[in-house]
């Protein structure tokens, strides 16, 4: 099986929100953090990630800001808003409930 897999459908938003709850980051920073923390299990595709960032920003869960980077380039940094934090809590609770249910089913004797 391929070691790198795409992020599970529907969980990308939650992973982005969680990653940004640590500190504001730019797009690539988020992708890298997700890959590192998942120990390379999840690979984030830039097209999906940047689209998701736009969507989350419009939903009011993220704010964005252009900043000058160390090598005087401009990069777009994203930060979690208060309603984004609430959204993360809701999605985390929902995910935990679902994952536990799936685990129970898989462990049950058929």
């Amino acid at each position, binding site marked *: 099986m391929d070691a790198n897999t795409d992020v599970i459908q529907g969980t990308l938003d939650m992973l982005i929100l969680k990653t940004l709850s640590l500190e504001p980051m*730019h797009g*690539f920073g988020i992708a890298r953090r997700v890959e590192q923390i998942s120990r390379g299990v999840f690979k984030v595709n830039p097209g999906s990630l*940047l689209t998701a960032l736009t969507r989350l920003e*419009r939903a009011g869960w993220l704010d964005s800001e252009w900043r000058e980077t160390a090598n005087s380039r*401009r990069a777009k940094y994203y930060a979690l808003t208060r309603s984004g934090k609430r959204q993360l809590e809701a999605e985390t609770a929902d995910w935990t409930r679902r994952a536990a249910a799936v685990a129970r089913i898989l462990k049950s004797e058929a």
Partner: protein
Amino acid sequence: MPSWRHVTRGLRSLLNRSAADRDIADEVEHYFDEAAAVLRSKGLSAEDARRAVRLEFGHANNVQERVRAYGWENVVDTVGADLRHAARQLSRRPAFALAAVATLALGIGATTAVFSVVYSVLIKPLPYPNADELVRIRHSDIHGERSFSETMYLTYREENRTFASIGLWHETAGDADRPR
């Protein structure tokens, strides 16, 4: 829950598409550069790092297009482009355009004419107060409709307990709107 930002951000990029496009291009480019920088720090040459990033993510333009395609403002853009395209095509072939317009005009005209007749004959309420409470009394048996004599009308009017009142009209040529 839709937020006001969907409206404002969409409008902003609709009103200044080139600035919005430049932002997306810069963001994608920055992403690719950062990815290449990580590979360079692992010992790849600048050229190899760029190629590896391209291999992994595809061409930057494709990524930009994908990000750019998000949002309701693109529907407006696309519909506008379609309309402009249609106008160009029609102006290029005026004979076809004329035939299409004539067909539409005839079709709409005929439908309107038929409807206005049907409306005035079948649908339009009669010009009396409380027109929806009006009913017509008919006499009929198994052989069909029976005529209604004047004495029968008087009997009905005296015995009436069902209607507010009963009137009689006589069909003659002429103005059918007036009660007689």
